[in-house]
């Protein structure tokens, strides 16, 4: 069996594995960077899977570009989160947002 055949057979389970692992990391991790990278890997894997299936190669490319744009946007948001909240610990950010909501209402 050639490498191309092997890849053709393996891309579906490989993509499924990466997607499950990526979404799992995105859901379970407290580190926002890990969450972003996990979700990004999952989306890129699904884009690659789509690209491997004819006739949707353009769709795979579009999915990849969307994923890269989203990851870039997420990284920018992370920088702003670090500036505003001090670190990238998800639990602290939730606490910070709660404080914001309370203070906004109290100020008003």
């Amino acid at each position: 069996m050639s490498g191309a055949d092997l890849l053709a057979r393996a891309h579906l389970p490989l993509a499924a594995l990466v997607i499950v692992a990526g979404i799992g990391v995105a859901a379970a991790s407290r580190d926002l960077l890990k969450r972003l990278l996990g979700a990004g890997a999952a989306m890129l894997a699904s884009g690659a899977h789509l690209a491997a299936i004819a006739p949707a190669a353009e769709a795979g490319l579009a999915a990849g570009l969307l994923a890269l744009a989203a990851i870039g946007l997420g990284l920018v948001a992370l920088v702003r989160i670090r500036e505003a909240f001090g670190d990238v610990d998800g639990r602290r950010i939730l606490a910070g947002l709660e404080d914001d909501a309370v203070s906004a209402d109290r100020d008003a």
Partner: protein
Amino acid sequence: MTDPAAFIAVHGADILTIAPFAVGAALTVAPHRRLGALVAAATGVVMLGVAAGVAALGGPAVDPLSTGALLVLAPVGAAGFVAAGAVLAREVDRRTQAVALGLGLMVLAAAFSAVTTDDVVTLALSLTATAVLGAGLTALAAGRNRAASAAAFTAVLVALCAGALGLFGAGLIVGGAGASDLLAIAGAGAGGAGVGIALLALACAAYAGLAPMHGWAADVAASTPHGTAPIVMIVARVAAFVGLTRLWGLSQLEPASALAEAFVVGGAALGAVGVAAGSIQAIGARDARRLAAHALTAQFGCALIGLAAGGVDGAMAALFVVAAGAATALALVVGAAAARPQLGAAAPMSALDGLAAQRPFVAAAMGVAAFGLTGAPLTAAFLGKWLSVEAALGRGWYWAAALIVAASFAAVFVAGQIIERLYFRERSAQIGPAPAGALAFAPALAASMAVTLAFGWNGAAPLEAARLAARAITGAP
């Protein structure tokens, strides 16, 4: 039929997707400080005209479900962009204002694409694009509202995770059925294609912010710029729900299949959770836009129960509820923009205090929307909830009917809170007078009020449109 009319009838869906996307991309890449608001508002209004033309002319461009969806999304988009010009200038700097409007136009284009396409890959890509672009829009508010950066980040995560599920599902459908066209894959619900349809539906549910996947939608609604909030929190979510409805119709073409049963059970469960969670969280919301987002979640839950109940009547109820919910949410979101404090990006509930004295028209529109939330008689929501209860009872789901009625009672608390703040409290000096620019909000508020009251009085026309769409997606004669 004149040539332009024939052109719109044939290419209407393409125009609705390409034109706002191109204008939005141009505004984003080359933001013009002065022209941005004018160009965005004009594009929104022109797209409303095209959508109305597509609906009136019929033709091969769109099916009845797409037509109905366009007639909901296009007015919300047009009214939203008209209002945006008056709000965005105070929220973001001038250069960023044009970028925000450009991103908003691209969200609108992607939403139009999602509701008019009959291709599963395009559906998945379009909805992912709405989420990514919506996250970008929210991130623009981060300079003045630190919660916006966290909300944008969460939206990015949802876009990536739901995008992964949706695109993988689309890939499974293409691989299993050998086609990506919805008509071509009808009846191919078994095996990999069936799993693909289920995954894509799950992605649609996440993008629509259906409970329990609705937290991100409320965060985004509360922190995205006021000027583009109707686009991000109504247009994008309704487009995703329409996509879910289309997939639901696909699953029901073989009523006895495992896929059809999974959609019924899953839809009923998600609907019940949505009605309960949305209603309860709306009562406790401390931000007006967060309240609107939770109320829309509850409406979506009600619609899902109608869909899951099955048949043309259930689908008709669902579509009517979603349209009425969009009209209600529009008034609440635009009203929150009109009532927002002079300083600050949030719209705390206390910003509604005493609004009736300063902006009686805004307060009246929000009051009508509040009554709409409760499903009060003479509002469109009443008819929608009535149809949903009928659909649930028709299926023998007494629990679902009881849940919808209980949610209406819960909404009375929400509506009472809004009315009490609007009419029986005084606006505090700390919040300051309601900001200027009320005229720009008039189209959105007037449209919402007119739809809520007129279709509550006589819902024959929208009911017929919903019936046609329901027949189209269920394959009923």
